[in-house]
């Protein structure tokens, strides 16, 4: 039984959100959440390309150990610091944090809930422009004084450096503002705009994930806001709150910064997990195992994520007591995550699994995120972290969860919801080819980095000991494979847009509400407001 009692379905040549109004201005001034999602998609893919180019430059610079052998003499140690800072800033603030909520959350949340739009459509549009303004400021720093502090803006260096830190932190502040407004919108939408009959226990797990993410966004981002404002005050007025010479404590900056930034990584991963729930259930044609457990584990992860930020600071000078406290709680945050993983695997068991491109990405997620998550537990142990902190082990860990986790889910989501968003199918072959290159390339790039980190290679270093060179070279070659893989995915998307075969309302045979309306959806999402009578994953 599908979720809906009755609805009318039309597929071809109908009035949908894409042709509802024509002209550039109708897009730029739209309050339709679906169009806003598409605009976010274009922006985020663009920034992903830029951040990816910086990544390739960073890895290219690391191909050789000695400065005189590097492939491009323009890259001095200072320039390298800038490249790695921008790779981090762009990827974290402009791609992955907004990523899934802005694109898929915006497009799908109201449709999955059976609503006509988000709770505050004009605020939604405003969020987009605030995000663009922040992104413009961030890109502007490239011309005013390139940042070399790393994306974490640690004091005291960020106070002393002559680069345009104030502009960069204001950019991050602005993008944080967009994040808050989006989260606010989604929480009120989930509370207030559910279709008749849709209780909180019947909403799709993707909605649960976005809901938990939005809670984190509301609670964590303001503290980042004040931290960044304080950095600006420190630089402009010499307030002395983080500067030891003026009586401040640099570790306090780290406390405030990581109070946001650790929940931020859960902002990144929770929506990805939501997508995986949808993908695995649809492509196993089976009810998700343990719906309640997965839903509550999203909330549990959101809650516990606020208690663990000190695990980024084990060697920064915080007290032993704090170190032990954070270490124990960090180990506990793995429990809800593991619950989800076991439930996904249990969903696939005795299901009828179809290995289409989105499912490949989902399975890739399971494999890569497991490695990333487990290595996180190793890092949570204070004793091991003393050895691993600021080495490539940490770099490998977070890339496994962020790229192997979030980006795999993002790309899988794109291939999965492409028919819904554009009314056309992508080429499954191209999707699978891109997966092969991304998955293989990813492991070739980042698995050696675990070994490098264990061997002691420090991160953010331009010049390193020649003994590390062979593994670095393997890693760089891997980065080219990833780049190629995402290029193939881009080709698949463009080919789908231009020449994809027409898609029906429900090409994957899924049971959630968004598949019960036409592809692309009409302007108001549903011809008549649906009444929900069944759960979202009832395949049998």
């Amino acid at each position, binding site marked *: 039984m599908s979720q809906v009692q009755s609805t009318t379905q039309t597929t071809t040549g109908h009035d949908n959100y894409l042709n509802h109004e024509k002209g550039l201005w109708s897009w730029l001034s739209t309050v339709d959440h679906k169009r806003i999602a598409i605009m976010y998609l274009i922006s985020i893919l663009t920034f992903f390309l830029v951040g990816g180019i910086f990544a390739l430059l960073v890895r290219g610079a690391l191909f050789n150990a000695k400065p005189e052998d590097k492939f491009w003499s323009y890259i001095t140690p200072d320039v390298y610091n800038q490249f790695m800072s921008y790779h981090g800033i762009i990827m974290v603030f402009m791609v992955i944090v907004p990523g899934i909520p802005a694109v898929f959350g915006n497009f799908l949340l*109201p449709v999955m809930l059976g*609503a*006509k*739009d*988000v*709770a*505050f*459509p*004009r*605020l939604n549009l405003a969020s987009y422009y605030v995000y663009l303004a922040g992104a413009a400021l961030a890109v502007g720093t490239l011309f005013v004084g390139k940042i070399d502090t790393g994306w974490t803006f640690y004091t005291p260096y960020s106070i002393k450096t002559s680069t345009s830190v104030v502009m960069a932190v204001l950019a991050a502040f602005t993008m944080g503002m967009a994040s*808050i407004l989006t*989260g*606010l*919108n989604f*929480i*009120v939408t989930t*509370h*207030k*705009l559910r279709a008749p009959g849709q209780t909180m226990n019947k909403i799709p797990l993707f909605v649960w994930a976005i809901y938990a993410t939005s809670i984190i966004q*509301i*609670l964590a*981002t*303001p*503290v980042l*806001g*004040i*931290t960044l*404002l*304080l950095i600006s*005050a420190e630089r402009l*007025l*010499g*307030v*002395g*709150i983080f500067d030891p*010479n*003026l*009586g*401040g*404590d640099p570790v*306090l900056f780290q406390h*405030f910064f990581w109070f946001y930034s650790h929940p931020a990584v859960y902002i990144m991963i929770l929506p990805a997990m939501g997508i995986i729930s949808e993908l695995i259930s649809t492509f196993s044609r089976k009810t998700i195992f343990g719906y309640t457990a997965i839903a509550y584990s999203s909330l549990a992860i959101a809650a516990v994520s606020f208690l663990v930020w000190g695990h980024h600071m084990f060697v920064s000078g915080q007290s032993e007591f704090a170190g032990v406290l954070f270490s124990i709680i960090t180990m506990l945050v793995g429990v809800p995550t593991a619950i989800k993983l076991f439930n996904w695997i249990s969903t696939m068991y005795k299901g009828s699994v179809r290995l289409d491109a989105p499912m490949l990405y989902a399975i890739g997620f399971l494999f890569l995120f497991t490695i990333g998550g487990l290595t996180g537990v190793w890092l949570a142990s204070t004793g091991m972290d003393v050895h691993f902190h600021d080495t490539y082990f940490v770099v490998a860990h977070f890339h496994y969860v962020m790229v192997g986790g979030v980006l795999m889910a993002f790309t899988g989501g794109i291939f999965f919801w492409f028919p819904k968003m554009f009314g056309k199918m992508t080429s499954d072959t191209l999707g699978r080819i891109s997966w092969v290159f991304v998955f293989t390339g990813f492991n070739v790039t980042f698995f050696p980095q675990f070994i490098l980190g264990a061997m002691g290679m420090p991160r953010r270093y331009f010049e390193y000991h020649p003994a590390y060179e062979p593994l670095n070279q393997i890693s760089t070659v891997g980065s080219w494979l990833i780049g190629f893989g995402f290029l193939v995915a881009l080709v698949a998307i463009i080919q789908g847009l231009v020449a994809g075969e027409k898609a029906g309302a429900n090409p994957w045979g899924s049971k959630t509400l968004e598949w019960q309306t036409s592809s692309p959806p009409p302007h*108001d999402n549903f011809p008549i407001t649906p009444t929900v009578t069944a759960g979202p994953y009832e395949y049998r």
Partner: protein
Amino acid sequence: MSTVKTEDGHFHHAHHFNSLSHQYDSAKQGVWLFMVTEILMFGGLFVAYLIYKSIYAPIFHVGSSYLDVKMGSINTVVLITSSFTMALGIYFNQKNKPKQAVIALALTIVCAGIFMVIKYFEYTHIIHRGLVPGKFFNNPEFQQKVVDFISNMPIENLTPTLSDTAHMKKIAPLYFGFYFVMTGLHGLHVMIGAGLILWVLIKTANGKFGAEYYTPVEGVGLFWHIVDLIWIYLFPLLYLVG
């Protein structure tokens, strides 16, 4: 605006809501969520303040003696009154009395203005005495007072940080760093709030609100009350507990 008084005198709700009541509840929930972010943002400042106060208590004690408690108290009374008039502004809109609502909202703006004027005098007073953070600091008397205070403390209460008098002299301006950032950010919110109240006042005067629809007034009211709330905490912390 999504809800506009039409010729037939009725308000219409936005199409994705079921009713005006539905829209009102949702809007209110949205404003409350935003207020949570405001609390956490200012809260971060309070955390930093409390931590440094515990470490460098003498600086904060001597520093707060340089603030004018009378001016601060008057400001507190002014803000509390403005909260009252704001609540009245909402009340009169709920009762379909736009004229009285406009007066109440105007009084609120007047109170905000008084607050900023008093704040201006406080600021100039302090800045003229050179009590600014950073490189423009110029008040050796303050630094000396801190050192004197420490030397008068019983020796068993002294921590190693406090005993380093040269260092304490150098970092004394930290207190005023906090003062200006905290009251400055709050003052900025007062000004933004006054602007929002003006916007709502104009709409009330133009007859855009009534008993069925006064959501923006309520939302701005919530924001203004949060601004008042923050000052209720700021005032004792900065001015009184030294």
